[in-house]
């Protein structure tokens, strides 16, 4: 005569209920953790993309340099000895101190990775700049 104590059966069912509830709680926690992780990873990916666009984009960099050269050659008398997207060798014959400062500021404010900078004679109406930037 196999019989189970009804109270034991009730206790077992309550245990099952507790197990199911805890399982659901675990999954809920996992769910929110997964959402949080996904958002975090999305943020990382977007940050990488943005930073790469700014600091590791050679075509973008070339365009910036060209624009810069176009801009300063229109405003200042001088000549360019050599220019490529990773190296600039610029000479200006007739500049004022403020113009020299403007040229330098404009140059360094481009989103390029400056590896080396060489500036000569900034105040006596001539300016020579050599700048090496990362590819």
């Amino acid at each position, binding site marked *: *005569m*196999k*019989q*189970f*104590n*009804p*109270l034991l*059966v*009730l206790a077992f*069912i*309550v245990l*099952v*209920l507790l197990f*199911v*509830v805890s*399982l*659901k709680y675990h*999954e*809920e926690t*996992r*769910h929110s953790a*997964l*959402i949080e*992780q*996904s958002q975090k*990873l*999305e943020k*990382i*990916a*977007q*940050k*990488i*993309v943005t*930073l*790469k666009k*700014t*600091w*590791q984009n050679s075509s973008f960099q070339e365009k910036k340099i060209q624009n810069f050269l176009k801009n300063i050659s229109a405003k200042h008398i001088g000549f360019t000895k050599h220019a490529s997207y990773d190296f600039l060798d610029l000479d200006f014959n007739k500049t004022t*101190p403020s113009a020299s*400062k403007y040229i*330098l*500021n404009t140059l*360094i*404010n481009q989103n390029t*990775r*400056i*590896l*080396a*900078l*060489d*500036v*000569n*004679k*900034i*105040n*006596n109406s001539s300016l020579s700049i050599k700048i090496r930037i990362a590819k």
Partner: protein
Amino acid sequence: MFQWLSKQKDHHVVVLDKGGIVYKDIVSLDKKIDVVLLPSFYWFVEKKLPIRFAFQAKEYLPSIFESLTTSAKLSYLAIQKEDIFWLFAYDDQDILKALEKENINISNVKKVYFAQNVFNDVAIDLDNNYSLININGILTRIPSTLAANGKKISQISKNNFNLTKGISLKRYKSFIGESFLYKLIIPIILIILLYVVDTAQLLYVNKNLLQQKNEIFSKYNLPNTTFQNKSILMQLKNTYKIQKNLRNFIETIMSAPYGTHGFITLFKINQKSSVLSIKLAKASDVNIFKNYFKQKLTIGNIKSIVVRNSILTVEFNL
């Protein structure tokens, strides 16, 4: 089939009276047994009822036995015999106590039967000064002195026992009613089912989320692992920091109070150091530049300062 035969062979019967066991076909009681209860353990009524099936008698039974016994915790059995019903009332705990008294382990009891339904003989001598007599269809236990000589119970073959319509005793007394228990269990089971469905759904959503999470980097054409991407991000952030600091340094150098105090003749920057040469207007102007660099430089520190022929040369560590 052979299994069934061996089961039949293993089948053992014990007949129990209030005074003790009156029949058993085995010596030790540690095997599975069927128990036949004599009338001293139950109340019996033979009745016609306005129902078709035995299970429908459930609602009539308590009121039928109400006048016969005052015991409140009775269980009932109805057996259909053609157009009449055999109705039994019994006290589970009373029977359990008797079994316990005879050292019969309740878990060894397969089923319990009522003598009324088991014995077909008219008179049976129970070998304990009592006999079972069938009086008007009702099996009654009376002293043997009052009964005619019946067949001795030890002489009856157990194969002649009609072991049908047995009952299972309620072993557990519950302080809450059985029906209440069922009422409690059913909603709990429903809640469990709801939770199971909900959890299964959540599991599916989580599985999809996990897949989407793994596809985030490939969406942006980046390496697959978080570790690799974190490393890339760190590298980029580092580049950003270095370049920002470099620009701040250049800006600080370019914003020095040159004007009438001097002008830059040379400004060199490489990876880790920088050299600045300033043509001074007056020798005393050197302090103006020294103080300026000490106050304003937040990035890079002065490595050396040399003044020669009105030219101030400052070396910086970056």
